[in-house]
């Protein structure tokens, strides 16, 4: 007990004064060094983060969030002498244009939402619209049933739902202009994409048993890989968001042998709208005929 309380005093002395006896100083230095190493370690992490942020910034400045419609041949030209170059010849038999996405970790979500929203502006009578609207209206309750705080999700929910309802009022000729504005900014676009991430997380958590074999702890996965502002999207998230909304995607994935692998999600038994995407490792763009 005596030892304990003198150690306790030592602790308090450490904070209050810097002048110590020689023997204590030796011990102190060791303690300080360990703390220094710890601080150094944390500083290093911070520096790495700063560096990554700087890289991100540089990437951002090079590229709009979503480009205007661009000839597919531009991509082929960029991949000249690359193993993927020939893929674009094969892709050109089915598609002629591309909207290129900023590589900010949101490319899948932004490309997917752009094409889905665009589809419903062009086809306001598509019965899928009402089905999805119903799912969206119910999504707040679904998320809250999973334990999400109403305060945390409602701003995202309200904005997404409002914008989805508004699609019916947008003139077809203004579709691209409207969506380039809606999805290309650092304000409401961030909210809309974040809500898409919540929807993916919702399906993942509702069907945790189905996914945990692939992603491990589903709650952890959602926190680290889904609900972050800038973490890119892998197949589990794509399966989740398309299933939750009852939508489809056609992913045209470049192959090292110069071919294109077409991945349809859902694979079969679905005849509704599919967003048409190009996948080169680590990145999605939106394809157009």
């Amino acid at each position, binding site marked *: 007990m005596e*030892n*304990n*309380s003198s*150690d*306790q005093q030592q*602790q308090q002395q450490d*904070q209050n004064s810097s002048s110590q006896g020689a023997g204590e100083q030796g011990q102190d230095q060791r*303690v300080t060094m*360990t*703390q220094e*190493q*710890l601080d150094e370690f944390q500083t290093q992490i911070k520096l790495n983060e700063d560096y990554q942020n700087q890289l991100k910034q540089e990437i951002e400045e090079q590229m709009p969030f979503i480009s205007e419609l661009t000839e597919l041949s531009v991509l082929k030209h960029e991949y000249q002498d690359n193993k993927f170059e020939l893929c674009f010849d094969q892709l050109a038999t089915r598609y002629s244009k591309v909207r290129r996405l900023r590589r900010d970790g949101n490319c899948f979500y932004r490309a997917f939402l752009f094409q889905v929203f665009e589809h419903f502006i062009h086809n306001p009578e598509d019965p899928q619209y009402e089905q999805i609207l119903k799912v969206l209206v119910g999504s707040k309750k679904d998320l809250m049933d999973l334990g*999400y*705080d109403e*305060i*945390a*999700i409602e*701003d*995202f929910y309200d904005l997404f739902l409002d914008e989805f309802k508004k699609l019916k009022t947008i003139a077809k000729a203004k579709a691209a202009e409207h969506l380039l504005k809606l999805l290309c900014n650092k*304000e*409401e676009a*961030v*909210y809309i994409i*974040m809500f898409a991430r*919540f929807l993916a*997380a919702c399906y993942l958590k509702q069907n945790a048993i189905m996914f945990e074999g692939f992603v491990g702890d589903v709650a952890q996965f959602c*926190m*680290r890989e889904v*609900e*972050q*502002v800038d973490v890119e999207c892998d197949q589990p998230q794509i399966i989740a968001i398309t299933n939750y909304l009852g939508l489809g995607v056609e992913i045209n994935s470049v192959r090292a042998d110069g071919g294109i692998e077409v991945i349809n999600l859902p694979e079969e038994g679905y005849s509704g709208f599919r967003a048409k995407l190009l996948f080169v490792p680590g990145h999605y763009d939106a394809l157009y005929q």
Partner: protein
Amino acid sequence: MVDNGRIMKELKELQEATKNVITTSYQQQSNPITLQSPTQQVQASIVGDNLRHWTGTIFGPKDTCFEGGIFKIDIEIPGEYPFKPPKMRFITKIWHPNISSQTGAICLDILKNEWTPALTIRTALISLQALLCAPEPDDPQDAEVARQYKSDKKLYEYTAKMWTENFAKEQTVDDKVKKLMEMGFPEDICKEALERYDNDENLALNFLLGG
């Protein structure tokens, strides 16, 4: 998009929690069995008139070294909130491997890279409470505390309890009077000194020693 609306809602919810605690404690006196312990609650209030600067309160969890302690947390809400985490720091001194004994800085993943906008300040405070239940010495904020935790758990527990006792417990005026009396001052003079210095124990003691 500056999202003060959400911050207002979060604050209101936490302030209502504060009210509930008061009601619960009151009811508990008359009906101690049926009601939940108020110590599970977390609270927050705004500092001055800055909507982005709060003080949070968490209660030391039962059956831990922090039981009975009331811990104040400084909360700064950045402009990018809820996309960036709130900045939190212990104001009340605490002896815990993941909290700096010097600065109150906290090592908790959800306050750093694992923060998501799906979380709220309330859920973050609850996570802090959980951190008090389950220290993680392998991911330390305070190397000295972590080392003690791993090498001499009993000493760690003793120190943590002492710190809770000394820094995290509100003392009544009577307690303070008693303490000063133990130093050999007469009761009425102790009371007078405390009154004069707004119940600040240290200032009262200085006054007594100086006078």
